[in-house]
């Protein structure tokens, strides 16, 4: 299990972090969850710099990325991931509070792998996280370089 890649959760709200972790926990996923509290921290982890310069952990199996983030917002994080030759194969799931059409359009144009509107009910959220987490973290092998992954 040690070679399981971690899940990178980028989320500024501690309540959402806790709820997401609870959901992931209930999915009984074995992957470690690394939490970044803003976009800048997420990028530091992804590009192994700043406080993560000497990280031992692997690149994430999946990035669960909130759209509205302090410092660097989710769309920009997404853009940098998808622009990087090494990281662009990493699946990114955009989590947002609402279905703003322009966010959706922009995310897909940047190459997001899934776009999830956080439902008000926890059960639905749990199901969404479970489905996505299972799919990306466990079932899905990272694609060969250069080809886009499909959910």
């Amino acid at each position, binding site marked *: 299990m040690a070679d399981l890649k971690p899940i990178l959760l980028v989320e500024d*709200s501690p*309540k*959402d972090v806790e*709820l997401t972790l*609870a959901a992931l926990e209930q999915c009984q996923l074995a992957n470690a969850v690394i939490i970044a509290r803003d976009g800048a921290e997420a990028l530091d982890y992804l590009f192994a710099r700043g406080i993560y310069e000497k990280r031992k952990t692997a690149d994430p199996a999946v990035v669960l990325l909130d*759209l*509205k983030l302090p410092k660097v917002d989710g769309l920009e994080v997404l853009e940098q991931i998808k622009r990087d030759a090494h990281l662009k194969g990493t699946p990114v799931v955009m989590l*947002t*509070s*609402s*279905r*703003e*059409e322009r966010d959706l359009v922009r995310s897909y144009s940047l190459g997001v792998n899934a776009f999830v509107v*956080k*439902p*008000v*009910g*926890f*059960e639905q*959220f749990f199901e969404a996280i479970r489905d996505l987490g299972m799919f990306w973290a466990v079932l899905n092998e990272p694609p060969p370089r250069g080809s886009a992954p499909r959910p």
Partner: protein
Amino acid sequence: MIETPASIADLDLAACEREPIHVPGSIQPHGALFVLDAGGTVTKAAIGALAEGVVAGDPIGRSLVDILPDGARKAVERLDGRLVAGRGPEHLCFLRTDAGAFHLVAHRSGDSIIVELERSLGDEPGSFDEVYPDVRAFLDAVQRTAGIQALADLAAREVRRITGLDRALIYRFDEEWNGEVIAEDNGGRLPVYLDLRWPASDIPAQARELYRLNRLRLIADAHYEPAPIGPDGEAVDLTYSVLRSVSPVHLEYMRNMETMASMSISLLSGDRLWGLISCHHLDPIRVPYHVRAACEFIGQVVSMQIAAHEASALAARRDALRTVQGKLLAHMAAEDHFIDGLLANPTDLMALTGAAGAVVVAGGRCTRLGETPAEADILALVEWLSHQDREDIFSTESLAAEWPPGKALKDLGSGVIAISISQIHDSYLIWFRPELVRTVSWGGDPAKRAELGPDGLRLHPRKSFEIWQETVQLRGRPWHEAELDAAAELRVAIVDIVLRRAEEMAALSERLTAINKELEAFSYSVSHDLRAPFRHIVGYAQLLKKFEGERLSERGDRYIETIIESAISAGQLVDDLLSYSQMGRSTITPVAIDVASMVAEARSNLTMEGDAHRIDWRIGDLAPVRADPVMVRLVVQNLLENALKFSRDREPAVIEIGSEAKADEVVTHVRDNGAGFDMAYVDKLFGVFQRLHREEEFEGTGIGLANVKRIVERHGGRVWAEGELDKGATFFFALPAA
């Protein structure tokens, strides 16, 4: 100039305009004229029949002092230093000679001095003092007159009384120098000319100029034999001369009128020739010098009065028009659209320019007031106006002269003022005046009253009236300067209003854009930030229930359920509100929509979710519409959902859907037999958060119908409802036909 009647008949009337009447080369025969050089030597001279013998021998080359009788010696000495150019003759003395008594007068003409001897009558006043009582009486009477007409009447009466002539007319020029007799005093020996009109050609330009400079002219006998000035008399300017000989054409005119003597006194308003006091006498007559001087004085007083009256009349007219204009502006400002303000007050609108009719053409609409041409003719005129490269105001007395098709409109629109009230659209405010001839003919044809002389005379008042009629045909009464100004000012006011409205609109739209942006930012942040707490409440409550549920009492469990339900419904409310706001912002892509299949789809979605209670669906023919499919799906979904919701306690529920295709729209309706509503509240039905039922009766956020209305209206359609409490409701929506 040739002077025999036979030759006169061949004269070209138009040549009148060119005739140099101020240098006729001859004088009338009741006196003598001497042209002196600076030293007092006679260089030219004319001796009339009534001055025969006043000098002995040929006066040319001799000093005037030497040739006149001794009585004149003192008067004519050193004249050169005493006379100023550009002034009328100065009375030097009354001279008695063996050849008769004379008035000796002199004036300067260029470098020369012109001395004239006018033969006096035996019993005439020898000085101005003798006519002074008459002048004084006139001055007293003038004080008591009010208005130009009263002044004219008085002047005609007084001049005739003082002179004893048969007829005195007050003749007034219009803007184009046509003339009209506005007052008359008549002793009964000559025909009445009151109200008669003459064309401008009757008194040509150079004659008018002479009248302007020399304010009194006498023709003592229409049959006179002129006395030539010799040698080379043509070179002598007789503008200010009292004996100047007149044009043979004029003498013919007088003979045709059967008036053997005439006297004219000029009336000026400022520098402009306003009119004449025109006197006639059946027989030859010489009006004595001092009587003429009194008349000239009367003329000057009348002139000053006229100038004062005209100035105050102009001011009064402007004042009156300004009052009218103020009223119009107030009307315009009071209306949403200024044009309604104009149209609601036709009397004021026409009074502003003294028009008989007015029309407002705006936005392809033509509204006529008073006497105007037909709409088709007006639109043709507007079409022509819009192609003219002209100023903001167009005015004419004769539309036909500017625009040939205008000839057909002469009875209603010979005079036209048009102001353009919009640069972008062809919008005009146009005033009309009828043809003047028509107006005057209504007052009675003066030609019929003037029963004079045989027909066929070329120069005759009746003939003149005909010529005048030709001159003014196709013309309206001229627009007064104050009226044109009023029209121009109204245009400025209208354009101001239009501009101000446009600016207000621009400012409003700017503000709306800003508000819209703000709203968008607001709803964006609401969508993210307001939803999160509800999500957290639900999330934590559910976690609590999951992990601690077993330890909770039944009551605690119920509390948790309520917390979850409430938070979920609050979250739903936020979602609904957001969708409502998005509905107003998202773009519409209209395509042809098969409403029938959309209804079928919505129906299957709903019945899948719904309970099993019996529903009687009655779906009629549904005509296709042209609209945005995503949005119309929401409308259909919403209305069906509502119908189901409010009829769920009916057994069976009856839901009827049908449509009616009209010319360019389709009205679709959804009818149920459910709870219905009270028509008293129909206005609230489509408002945001408006609910007509209690929450525990029928759930819902109160956004659904607001969304329906918003969507339909964004397509330019209409939505309405009919219902009765407990008897069901019908919702209609009209959308463009496919």
